[in-house]
């Protein structure tokens, strides 16, 4: 064998891959060729240094640590998948409804169109709050369901925005509240509430409802929710992490941790559209969210009929219209206490005079008809006394209970003294007419 052939066999010799014959020839050549011997020595040295270096690497087995991490991560993923499936389960429930099937079909179409637009423009990298906000620029209709652990049925919201992105119209269905089920429609000009249990229909507008609606909208309009998050992130109140699964069919997750309070939030984002599919809120280390908001039917036009109660409420409902008529009595120069007493006095005087229109206007604004239906049977004939008003802070800053005694004529024709529980009167900034006093209960 010549030198070049021998040198090609260095590794084979070191690895014990040569046949006995080749090995003999190899060793014989090295004995006679100093250059090859020197070359082989160099390679052998490197081989020994590598063997020795490998032996010196002392490692602690990480097998268990790796395995624990894998199990841990796998559990996390399963949990995520579970959440995703829960969303699907709810979706399936909704799909049973024939009308929503069409709506869902429309959503799918819109999602496809939206995703085409998005992919034409950019290739998503990581999910940022800004991107989600941006995705909402063209969303004008949305439908939200909020599930809470202590509620049997979800609260449901429908929102319509105008081209400037401001909320135009909203509808809220709250099946479980202290007052029983409530259906609310709202526009910046008019709010309507149908108290199903009390069977009353309140038409009004006030700073209070304005604030309440604003809060509800801020909590359920994803764009506003995201803008608030961004503010909190910039103020250093929250930490934000995003998880973007490679599989684009799985939702991306924005994980928000509050730095001081034990609160966490998970935002599940549809990777094709950048729109929120659900939000989960956790108030401590609990594994179950206390609130789950699901978002449906993005941009499926909502019929304007949904934003008015006209066609839904029963005919016999008690209409309390505070918007189209001047209700209550004016405060004028009276103190709050005097105004409260005067309200009660004028109410009973109206009953004595059988002026049910006036009584209705003082009684929160119910119709003359309803006032008659409700109070004529009392047959009030005289006011005996009107006591000192006692503040009712739970009903508002300017709310009082006014104990009183009135004379009534019973069904047997006998005069009696009747002490109502105490008409509750109210005025204040929260009301439709802040300077006017009404009776809101207690009779």
């Amino acid at each position, binding site marked *: 064998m010549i030198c070049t052939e021998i040198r*090609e066999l*260095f*590794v*084979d010799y070191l*690895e014990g*891959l040569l046949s006995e014959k080749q090995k003999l020839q190899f060793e014989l050549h090295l004995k006679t060729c100093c250059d090859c011997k020197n070359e082989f020595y*160099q*390679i052998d040295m*490197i*081989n020994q*240094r*590598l*063997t*020795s*270096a*490998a032996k*010196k*690497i002392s*490692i*602690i*087995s*990480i*097998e268990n*640590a*790796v*395995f624990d*991490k*894998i*199990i841990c*991560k*796998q559990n996390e993923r399963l949990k995520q998948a579970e959440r995703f499936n829960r969303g699907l389960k709810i979706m399936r429930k909704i799909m049973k409804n024939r009308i929503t099937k069409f709506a869902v079909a429309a959503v799918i179409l819109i999602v496809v169109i939206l995703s085409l637009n998005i992919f034409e423009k950019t290739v998503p990298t990581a999910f940022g709050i800004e991107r989600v906000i941006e995705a909402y620029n063209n969303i004008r209709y949305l439908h939200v369901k909020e599930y809470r652990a202590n509620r049997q049925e979800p609260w449901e919201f429908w929102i319509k925005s105008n081209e400037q992105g401001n909320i135009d119209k909203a509808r809220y269905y709250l099946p479980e509240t202290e007052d029983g089920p409530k259906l609310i429609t709202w526009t910046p000009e008019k709010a309507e509430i149908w108290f199903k249990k009390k069977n009353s229909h309140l038409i009004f507008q006030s700073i209070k409802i304005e604030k309440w609606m604003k809060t509800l909208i801020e909590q359920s309009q994803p764009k506003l929710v995201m803008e608030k998050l961004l503010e909190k992130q910039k103020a250093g109140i929250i930490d934000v992490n995003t998880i973007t699964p490679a599989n684009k069919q799985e939702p991306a997750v924005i994980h928000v941790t509050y730095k001081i309070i034990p609160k966490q939030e998970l935002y599940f984002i549809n990777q094709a559209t950048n729109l929120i599919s659900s939000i989960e809120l956790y108030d401590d280390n609990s594994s179950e969210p206390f609130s789950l908001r699901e978002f449906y039917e993005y941009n499926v036009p909502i019929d304007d009929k949904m934003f008015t109660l006209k066609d839904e409420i029963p005919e016999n409902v008690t209409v309390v219209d505070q918007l189209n008529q001047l209700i209550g009595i004016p405060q004028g120069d009276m103190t709050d206490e005097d105004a409260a007493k005067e309200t009660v006095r004028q109410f009973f005087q109206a009953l004595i005079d059988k002026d049910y229109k006036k009584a209705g206007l003082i009684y929160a604004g119910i119709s003359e008809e309803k006032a008659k239906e409700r109070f004529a049977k009392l047959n009030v004939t005289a006011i005996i006394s009107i006591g000192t008003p006692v503040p009712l802070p739970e009903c508002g800053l300017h709310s009082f209970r006014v104990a009183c005694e009135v004379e009534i004529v019973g069904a047997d024709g006998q005069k009696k003294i009747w002490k109502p529980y105490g008409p509750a009167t109210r005025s204040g900034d929260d009301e439709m007419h802040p300077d006017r006093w009404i009776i809101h209960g207690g009779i």
Partner: protein
Amino acid sequence: MAESDKYLVELCLDGRPDEFRHLVRRYQKAVTAYLASKSGNRTNIEEAVQETFVRAYFNLSDLKKLESFPSWLLGIAKNVAKEQLRNKADFAELDSSTEPQTKEQNTEDDFELQRAFAKLPDSYREILLLRFYANQSCQQIAENLDMPIGSVTKTLSRAYSQLRQLLEVQK
């Protein structure tokens, strides 16, 4: 004979994560040595090694050629090292200007060799890692990488030559 990488990967993909332990055992030293060639900080290495295996496990389904598990694994280690370099700025490529921090801890470490090793092209480094740190014979490497044994010995031979040149330049 121990099960092939391909067989173990198949078992893992079949929903038996416990089998991944064999692969961790088999390549832990190689991954450690690889990451050591990228960094001087031992604490970070252990974290990086664990991260490499965890990431590999969850991406096993992306592994197109099951035979090339070791090269794929080292590719992941490379990414992990890069990320740590970006995040912590203390995961430095070894070159003549950086001395490994472990020098004081173990004076017997062959730093010349480590430095030269760090400069090898990936394909050469990979074969040396498998041969010496994963302690695989040329035959096993050939089987695992699905290549003829002659190619393994030739690559090893070239890796030695290059390492030798790098060591001479360093002197």
